[in-house]
């Protein structure tokens, strides 16, 4: 009897039936972030399963927030949701906000844009979307810190303390690398969801079922997020294998992949999206980010791994990192100066725009860090070379703290909007 009952349950579960997923927006007309030449008469959303809707389930908003859509209806067994639209004019971008109730009880919602006679604005600039908040700044900072904790110690272990190190220090390098890789992934997810939530404008409970696809697939930061999530998942696995299988050489692919993936932040930031952006500004931003990450993360590795866990390597590690730091600071200053000139062509922009004032703040903190580094270079290094053993750890911790503060200023700057830039062609014309 029991066997028959068990068999019945299993067969019932395995019986063929409708094989549909969770409520997913399969397609829309107009297509997400498309450019139309003629105004549409209706908005049509097709879902993968039947949904129920309220009369205002689809809202079409003009740039000034005016509601242009009529009563929402369903057809084709509840899978297609339609709303008529009127008074749509050429030459503007429009926002579509939707919310339905799925058969599984979830209430997915989403937002997308389309343009009529013009390119559609990105979903982050949909009507009703808010700009970056302190939460976005905090998430971006945490992402920079995690990236620094991943890349910096890897560079120190691979380039500065290349030989064998005490077992405790080696475990410390492995542990920090793995934890940092997981942090990059998790903080990246939080940062992505926060950014999307600024446009979705949903309460937390509803945000859990918000449609993130327009942000993941139609924005630079979304595509970068997808690549970085998958990539850093692989980095975490490679770093774990490097430790478990005693294959330190696996750190090299982990480092190269991490440095490559860091470009996702540069390819989706202001240096890639402003009118005068180009491959040079994106490359400079990537170089700036990687150099800063190696510098800040390297200091953390020296202060918290090498100094307490590998006393015999302190001198060589400090001197080796001092040599590397000269290169890093040079790269940071050159790339940073180029980027500042690209974003703020007028000197007065430094104090007349918010972006400029943030940049001044960052430069002030950088000046403190560079002075600290110079003190290490010119005061501590000669003593170490002379065979003395000064207690540098508190000072290293201090410099690392200032370096991480620089990353905070960089995070705020990254989320701030620079003043509008002229496109390269316009620059060329005005130069001529």
């Amino acid at each position, binding site marked *: 009897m029991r066997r028959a009952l068990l068999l019945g*349950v*299993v067969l*019932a*579960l*395995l*019986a063929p*039936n*409708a*094989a*549909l*997923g*969770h409520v*997913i*927006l399969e397609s829309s007309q107009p297509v997400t972030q498309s450019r139309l030449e003629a105004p549409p008469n209706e908005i049509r959303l097709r879902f993968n*399963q*039947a949904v129920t809707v309220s009369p205002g389930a689809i809202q079409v908003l003009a740039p000034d927030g005016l509601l242009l859509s009529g009563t929402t209806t369903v057809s084709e*067994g509840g899978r297609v949701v339609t709303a008529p639209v009127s008074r749509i004019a050429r030459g503007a971008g429009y926002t579509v906000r939707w919310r339905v109730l*799925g*058969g*599984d*009880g*979830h209430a*997915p919602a989403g937002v997308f844009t389309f343009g009529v006679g013009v390119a559609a604005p990105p979903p982050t600039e949909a009507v009703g979307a808010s700009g970056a908040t302190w939460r976005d700044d905090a998430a971006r900072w945490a992402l920079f810190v995690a990236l620094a904790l991943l890349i910096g110690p890897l560079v120190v272990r691979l380039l500065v303390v290349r030989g064998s190190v005490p077992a405790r220090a080696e475990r410390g390098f492995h542990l920090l690398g793995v934890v940092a890789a*997981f942090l990059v*992934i*998790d903080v990246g*997810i939080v940062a992505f*969801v926060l950014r*999307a939530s600024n446009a979705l404008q949903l309460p937390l409970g509803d*945000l*859990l*079922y*918000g*449609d*993130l*696809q327009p*942000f*993941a*697939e139609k924005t630079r930061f*979304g595509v970068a997020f*997808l690549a970085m*999530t*998958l990539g850093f*998942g*692989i980095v*975490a*696995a490679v770093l*774990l*294998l490097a*430790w*478990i*299988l005693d294959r330190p050489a696996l750190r090299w692919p982990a480092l190269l992949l991490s440095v490559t993936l860091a470009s996702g932040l540069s390819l989706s930031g202001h240096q890639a999206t402003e009118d005068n952006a180009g491959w040079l500004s994106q490359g400079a931003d990537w170089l700036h980010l990687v150099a800063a990450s190696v510098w800040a993360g390297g200091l953390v590795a020296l202060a918290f791994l090498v100094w307490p866990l590998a006393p015999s390597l302190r001198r060589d590690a400090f001197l080796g990192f001092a040599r590397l730091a000269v290169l890093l600071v040079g790269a940071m200053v050159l790339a940073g100066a180029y980027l500042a000139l690209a974003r703020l062509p007028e000197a007065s922009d430094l104090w007349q725009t918010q972006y400029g004032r943030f940049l001044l703040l960052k430069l002030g903190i950088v000046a403190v860090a560079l002075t600290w580094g110079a003190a290490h270079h010119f005061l501590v290094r000669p003593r170490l070379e002379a065979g003395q053993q000064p207690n540098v750890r508190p000072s290293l911790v201090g410099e690392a703290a200032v370096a991480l503060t620089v990353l905070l200023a960089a995070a705020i700057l990254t989320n701030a909007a620079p003043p509008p830039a002229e496109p390269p062609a316009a620059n060329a014309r005005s130069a001529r």
Partner: protein
Amino acid sequence: MVPRPEIAHWLAGAIALLLGLLLASEVLVGSEVFRRRRWRAYLFPAVVIASSVLLWMITIFSTFSTMHLLAHAVWAQAALLAGAVQLALVRDKLTSPAWSLVPGVALLVSGAAFLVHEPNDWLYSRSAFLHHAIGWMLVVSALFPLGQALRPRQVVWRAGFALTFVLLAVLLFADRDSATIFGRFGAGGP
């Protein structure tokens, strides 16, 4: 860009079945015989780590809702950590029996993620039933690694751990999401 959910679920079911059979084989013949060839000991952790990479791929396809993105990210990380710890135990990089608890924690967290991302009652739909069933099964089965750590000689814990994956495979193969449950009950079916 989004693959059909049941395709992903059935792929996950196939991997769970493979893991369950690997574990069951070791339980049936005994670790001494199973690990006579060293590479066999690597099979389970290797498949778990590989499945974590696949789960990351599913994660980035799961942007159709925040909840699914978060849940899949939790499963991917739990699989990677559990697989890595198992591999480290095989390699003697970790020696304390307490590390055997990590798969238990991974099962607990994974089960909680299943339960949290299902807001409906058991009989609301087939999907809801399966999510509850899988979630509670994983939560309860977290006791098996605990028992294994406390009483490593008792085979029941390892057998239970193996059967967990087999049952997980059955439930994942049965996943039809919003279809009615047992063919007639539930409000979620079309």
